[in-house]
């Protein structure tokens, strides 16, 4: 009942004219970013931080979250019509969605993608409003050792799961931690790694690093390998968008399985919307009575993954809001944005800033309805945006990023940070280092460090403090397990192989 009251006050906030307008702006931009290949949700959210800088925290987070889940809707349009995923979480939608379009069934594919997104999105927000306060209540009693264990686990999970290579993930994560050390030491007050520059006293600007690492690096990679776009010609009337009765019958199972799966995958740090959609597609194929038909244009291959990636976006809000550990690049950027607004996500957020949490959650219900409207009748509009060539967009993305980074602090130095981060990000992509752990470590770094040092002060330097307390011990065990699991697996495999050769 208490939750219901909070939710009602959240709706009062989210339904104010200003927040409604910015929610609409956020989801519209999100759809656009999702539709356009070459700009992902991380880039979109990162570019928006400077723009939302002048707003109050609630409006800012409502707008940026709108971009995040809005992109999940838009991504399917591109996948279905031109066989290029609008962003990585809609890769699976290309498999059956594009085939449906080739068979002249683009309408139902687009319609089902939007409806699946709506159902799964709403389901995951329901779960979020129910689980998040419970988890926050539980985490309120956390002391520094639990916090250290928690943030440490967040870091290891994301670095372990972010890329194909554990070593590269770890190197990215440690690089991010190193960047987080720049600036004044929070406990002793002495400056570190500032190389005599007064600009570095406050640390490396988060916005500069995030925009460079994601937005600029993405542009640099894209101008090197231009995207090829081949349109499937379709006439889209509103009537043609609605799936027929057989479509519904075939997709209903995929829909609810995708929703549940997506939400729980989203809650796990490290696995996000992309993993959720992969798992959902795999599950549907395995459960299907005709698995051989997958890839030829079956509607459940669209409904499952599209539902899953939206549910995951809602699920990802759970650890971000309740524990203050973002599980992916996009949520790390969202968290950085909240910190800039002076709001620290974590268990206390629900007590200290209920208006932000519940305003955001309520706005997500509204945003999903807005997105359904934006994506069903207006799908033709988004299709026409697809015809804007990337070479026209590229200069716009670069200049908006650059001016945006400048605008947050009126500081040209931040633009240099962005340029440097962009070059580093480009090289990281070329060498297949994941960028998400860098940003995550940069955001979590100060928290990891403070809780580590506070804990060690409490225990007079005895590291056992992390293993004596049950919650922190369990979290540490999980963290170590996630780090060493790949190594153990490799070790077993290499031991077994020689035996088989004998």
């Amino acid at each position, binding site marked *: 009942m208490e939750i219901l009251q909070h939710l009602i006050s959240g709706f009062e906030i989210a339904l104010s004219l200003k927040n409604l307008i910015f929610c609409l702006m956020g989801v519209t931009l999100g759809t656009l970013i999702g539709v356009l290949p070459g700009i992902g949700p991380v880039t979109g959210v990162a570019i928006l931080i400077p*723009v939302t*800088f*002048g707003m109050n925290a609630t409006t800012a987070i409502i707008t940026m979250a709108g971009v995040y889940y809005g992109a999940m809707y838009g991504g399917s349009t591109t996948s279905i019509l031109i066989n290029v995923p609008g962003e990585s979480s809609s890769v699976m939608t290309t498999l059956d969605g594009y085939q449906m379009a080739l068979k002249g069934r683009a309408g139902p594919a687009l319609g089902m993608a939007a409806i699946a997104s709506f159902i799964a999105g709403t389901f995951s927000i329901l779960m979020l409003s129910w689980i998040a306060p419970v988890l926050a209540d539980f985490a309120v009693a956390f002391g520094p050792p639990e916090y250290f264990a928690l943030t440490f686990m967040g870091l290891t999970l994301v670095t372990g799961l972010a890329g194909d290579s554990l070593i590269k993930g770890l190197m990215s994560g440690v690089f991010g931690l190193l960047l987080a050390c720049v600036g004044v030491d929070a406990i002793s007050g002495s400056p570190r790694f500032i190389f005599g520059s007064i600009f570095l006293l406050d640390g490396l600007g988060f916005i500069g690093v995030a925009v460079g690492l994601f937005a*600029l690096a993405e*542009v*640099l990679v894209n*101008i*090197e390998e231009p995207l090829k776009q081949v349109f499937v010609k379709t006439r889209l009337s509103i009537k043609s968008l609605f799936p027929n009765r057989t479509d519904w019958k075939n997709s209903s199972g995929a829909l609810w399985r995708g929703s549940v799966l997506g939400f729980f995958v989203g809650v796990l740090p490290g696995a996000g919307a992309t993993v959720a959609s992969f798992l959902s597609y795999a599950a549907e194929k395995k459960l299907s009575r005709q698995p051989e038909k997958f890839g030829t244009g079956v509607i459940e291959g669209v409904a499952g993954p599209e539902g899953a990636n939206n549910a995951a976006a809602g699920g990802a809000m759970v650890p971000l809001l309740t524990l203050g550990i973002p599980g992916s690049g996009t949520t790390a950027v969202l968290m950085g944005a909240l910190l800039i607004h002076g709001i620290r996500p974590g268990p206390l957020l629900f007590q200290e800033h209920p208006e932000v949490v519940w305003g955001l959650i309520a706005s997500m219900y509204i945003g999903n309805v807005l997105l359904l409207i934006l994506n069903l009748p207006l799908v033709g509009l988004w299709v026409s945006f697809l015809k804007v060539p990337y*070479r*026209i967009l*590229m*200069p*716009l993305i*670069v*200049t*908006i990023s*650059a*001016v*945006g980074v*400048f*605008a947050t602090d*009126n500081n*040209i130095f931040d*633009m*240099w940070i962005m*340029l440097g981060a*962009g*070059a580093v990000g*480009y090289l990281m992509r070329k060498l297949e280092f994941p960028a998400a752990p860098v940003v995550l470590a940069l955001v979590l770094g100060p928290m990891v460090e403070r809780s580590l040092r506070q804990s060690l002060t409490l225990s007079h330097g005895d590291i056992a403090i992390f293993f004596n307390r049950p919650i922190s011990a369990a979290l540490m065990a999980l963290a170590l397990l996630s780090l060493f699991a790949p190594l153990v697996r490799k070790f077993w495999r290499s031991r077994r192989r020689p035996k088989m050769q004998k």
Partner: protein
Amino acid sequence: MLNVMLVVAGLAIYILALSRLGFSASTFLFVAFLLGVVEKERWFKACFIALLSTAGLYLIFRILLDVKLPKNMYGF
């Protein structure tokens, strides 16, 4: 690879130019450079889009968001 270096170098020059030429002039030149040199659009089209984007960015950042953009010695 050449394009990547052109964008990085162009951006560096843009950042340097901002405090000298001011926001409007440097942004116009930078967008025109990206379109004309990197993307090899025709110059007329490049300049036209550059003009529009400079005006758009000025509208968003200077007028809507009230950011103090760098000016040159002539005040724009």
